[in-house]
């Protein structure tokens, strides 16, 4: 019996239980006792008891049986010899598994040939492609594995259905005017809500653990010191199985590229964003604000890939040609450069800075503003001497949040910053960033366990740690600041 069918039957049992439960509750309400819960809560309680335990069991059973099956295949495989045709035991097991899956596609009464060479065309006719190093001895094992799987599936289905019906009966027996069905249902709902809110934690744990494991694996082949303090980035491409060529994985050129570009971006975004926020909050008439604010939000809604393409297709060549005209010959700005990438990223960050600082500036109490203006200060003096100093901690937090966005930004730098890992101080040359290298190392056909691929996770965890610290400090400052004036 397939899992889908079992699921459908369980759902059907749940629906039937719902209606019976509700019906029973209605029938028992003869007006003599005031019922505790409304009738449909009895129905829902019956539904939940019929469905939830059964689903839980089915899930656990499926996981358990796939583990059991794997062990079973493992035990059935012949002892490995040194000249085994297949590279590893894990590969052996996975070959048998895909063979077993393929055999299911065949008609039930097909006579199975004993050798793989004869079997392959039969399977190919059904559209099943198998690896060529599948061995003859695997066929009987696969047949047996299928039989075991069928048996396990049947037992699981029967137990699930029995549990479902039992749950429904248990709930239906409980239906009584004073039974607290609503409280039961609501308690389960509360658990559901709690489970949903833990997903945020699970995601963080998932991020940290997944990257940590790969990073530890990476540090098996490359020492942490040469990663964190290395000044040369030259990973070399390792073809599958060659293993010999060892690249150099120095973080320093990537980190300095990342920080340099982020710095240029902040140099653009902070003054412009801050000044527009100040103007919008203190000077602009409501009419101007109602036009300009959505327009700036529009700037924030444009995907970063569009900025990246603008940088590489339009702005980069334009700046290169411009610099060629200025010097009257060879251009001093390269097509892909720190300057171009930083400039475009800065523009992308303008709305981020301005909306964050807008909130902060408007949070400065009216009384401070009025006091300063009442003493005869001009508006700009009030802003420069009173409002900005008062808002400073919040603005620093906003800048930190923006910087963390700049460091983690990917598509603009992938397109506009270049891929060469240089160490240079000239903003008109190309430099590369951590995010660019993560993308570079993971797109393409690389062997998954080579350091060339694993280094992406080490870079990722560095990036995560960097932004995490900045975010937490920034959020802390912003929160503290808000409390100060509330």
């Amino acid at each position: 019996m397939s899992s889908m069918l079992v699921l459908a039957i369980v759902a059907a049992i749940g629906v039937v239980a719902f209606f019976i439960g509700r019906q029973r509750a209605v029938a028992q309400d003869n007006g003599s006792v005031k019922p505790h819960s409304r009738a449909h809560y009895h129905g829902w309680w019956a539904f939940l008891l019929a469905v939830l335990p059964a689903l839980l069991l089915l899930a656990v059973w499926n996981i358990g049986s796939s583990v059991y099956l794997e062990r079973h295949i493992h035990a059935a495989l012949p002892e490995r010899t040194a000249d085994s045709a297949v590279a590893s035991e894990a590969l052996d097991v996975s070959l048998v598994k895909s063979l077993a899956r393929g055999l299911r596609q065949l008609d039930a009464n097909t006579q199975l040939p004993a050798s793989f060479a004869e079997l392959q065309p039969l399977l190919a006719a059904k559209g099943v492609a198998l690896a060529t190093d599948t061995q003859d001895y695997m066929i009987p094992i696969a047949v047996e594995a299928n039989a075991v799987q069928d048996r396990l599936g049947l037992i699981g289905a029967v137990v699930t259905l029995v549990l479902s019906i039992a749950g429904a009966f248990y709930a239906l027996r409980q239906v009584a005017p004073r039974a607290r069905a609503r409280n039961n249902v609501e308690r389960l709902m509360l658990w559901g809500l709690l489970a949903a809110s833990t997903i945020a934690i699970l995601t963080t744990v998932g991020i940290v653990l997944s990257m940590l494991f790969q990073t530890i694996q990476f540090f098996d082949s490359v020492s942490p010191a040469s990663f964190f303090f290395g000044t040369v980035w030259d990973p070399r491409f390792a073809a599958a199985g060659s293993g010999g060529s060892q690249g150099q994985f120095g973080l320093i050129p990537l980190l300095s590229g990342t920080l340099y570009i982020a710095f240029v971006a902040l140099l653009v975004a902070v003054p412009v964003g801050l000044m527009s926020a100040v103007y919008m909050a203190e000077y602009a008439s409501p009419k101007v604000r109602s036009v300009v604010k959505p327009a700036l939000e529009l700037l924030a809604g444009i995907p970063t890939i569009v900025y990246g393409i603008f940088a590489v297709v339009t702005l980069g060549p334009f700046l290169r040609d411009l610099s060629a005209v200025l010097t009257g010959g060879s251009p001093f700005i390269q097509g892909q450069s720190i300057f171009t990438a930083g400039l475009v990223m800065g523009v992308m960050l303008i709305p981020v800075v301005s909306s964050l600082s807008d909130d902060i500036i408007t949070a400065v109490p009216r009384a401070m503003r009025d006091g300063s203006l009442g003493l005869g200060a001009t508006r700009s003096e009030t802003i420069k001497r009173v409002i900005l100093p008062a808002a400073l901690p919040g603005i620093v937090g906003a800048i930190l949040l923006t910087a963390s966005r700049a460091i983690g930004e990917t598509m603009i730098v992938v397109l506009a910053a270049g891929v060469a890992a240089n160490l240079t101080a000239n903003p008109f040359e190309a430099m590369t960033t951590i995010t660019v290298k993560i993308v570079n190392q993971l797109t393409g056909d690389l062997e998954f366990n080579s350091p060339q691929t694993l280094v992406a996770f080490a870079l990722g965890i560095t990036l995560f740690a960097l932004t995490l610290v900045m975010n937490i400090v920034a959020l802390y400052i912003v929160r503290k600041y808000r409390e100060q004036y509330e």
Partner: protein
Amino acid sequence: MTDIPLDTMVRAAAPARRDIGLKARYAAERRFRIYGVLAISVGLAFLAIMLITIVSKGYTAFWQTTVTLPINFDEKIIDPSNKRATDPDVLIKANYPKLADKALMAKLGIDPSNKPMALKLKGFLSEGARVQLRDIVVADPSVIGTTRNVDILAAANLDSAFKGQIDLNVEEARRKVSDQQIAWMNQLKADGTMAEHFNKGLFTYGASSRPETSGMGVAIIGSFYMMVIVLLLALPIGVAASIYLEEFAKKNRFTDLIEVNINNLAAVPSIVFGLLGLAVFINFLGMPRSAAFVGGLVLTLMTLPTIIIATRAALAAVPPSIRSAALGLGASKMQMVFQHILPLAAPGILTGTIIGLARALGETAPLLLIGMVAFVADYPKTPFDPATALPVQIYMWANEAERAFVERMSGAIIILLVFLMAMNITAIVLRRRFERRW
């Protein structure tokens, strides 16, 4: 106060005008204002320049040049040995480009035996003609032996030339279209055989190595699947989590931890979610690479914090009087939340969800890591089949060198921006219409 002489008071009321630098201060005030206006203008000017350059590069992508030719589906070329009844492969492998070339030569009045001239025709029609004619014949084999008008795509270079994008002053050897081909093009243009049509293919074709037959069909379907998955997962989970945190959670270490987590996840670089997807969904759980399903899961995790933050704000905005009223009438806390608070907060939740979806639709970096940069020519039938996404398709076209791809890329950006703008405007309108201030 009483013993101050009157004349001193008068004098104090009208002091001599001292120079307190008012002129300089007002000048500083004006300068400051100008800085503000400049800052805003810089942002808006950049927005304008970006949109103008993209639209001016991309609007031509919505038109495509085709050549209308009377194709004679000659049995001698398609099926010379008359085996199609027994061997269906014959119809698939037949030499269809020859049909198109013959029709074109007849139209231009070129003698087919004139080899040098015939050679110059190479690269005039798209290679896609093969597929186009094959599909016609396979769908309806009775067409063999008849003549029928078919709109055949011109090759990308001819398309560019037709749209006037190729500089004809460059010497012939250095451009991709020969003078002879230009002459033919003008001849066909004059008699109306060659014309621009609306480019349906841009929306329906999958990946292709030839610009004229490549389109965003696969990417649109992939993005659609992902948006559906994000909506189905992120909305219920996000709303449930917000309800718990806003209405039920007691203030303790655990809820503090969840809160810090959500705020931090909202600021984690998107590429990190891609690494998570690669390590957990693909390597650990063995899900297929390049599948829209995995993309949807990754984008769900990325969108969740946005939705949770928006939903919590919407829930918190519902005034306490409504809570008290519901509880006072005997509703349980759960009934109060689901029957009173949630409906009142729905517009805010919806707005936050749409904005989150718009962000997810434009996101590229995490999708690159889970293998969605793939050459997918066929439509994905389920979310588990290989697919691409709109922004990833744009990225892939950005890496192609040919100018026709740049045109398509800009066209794709226009479409993506139209989608995003429609979503954002919907969100703004919803907010304006349903927003209630208590």
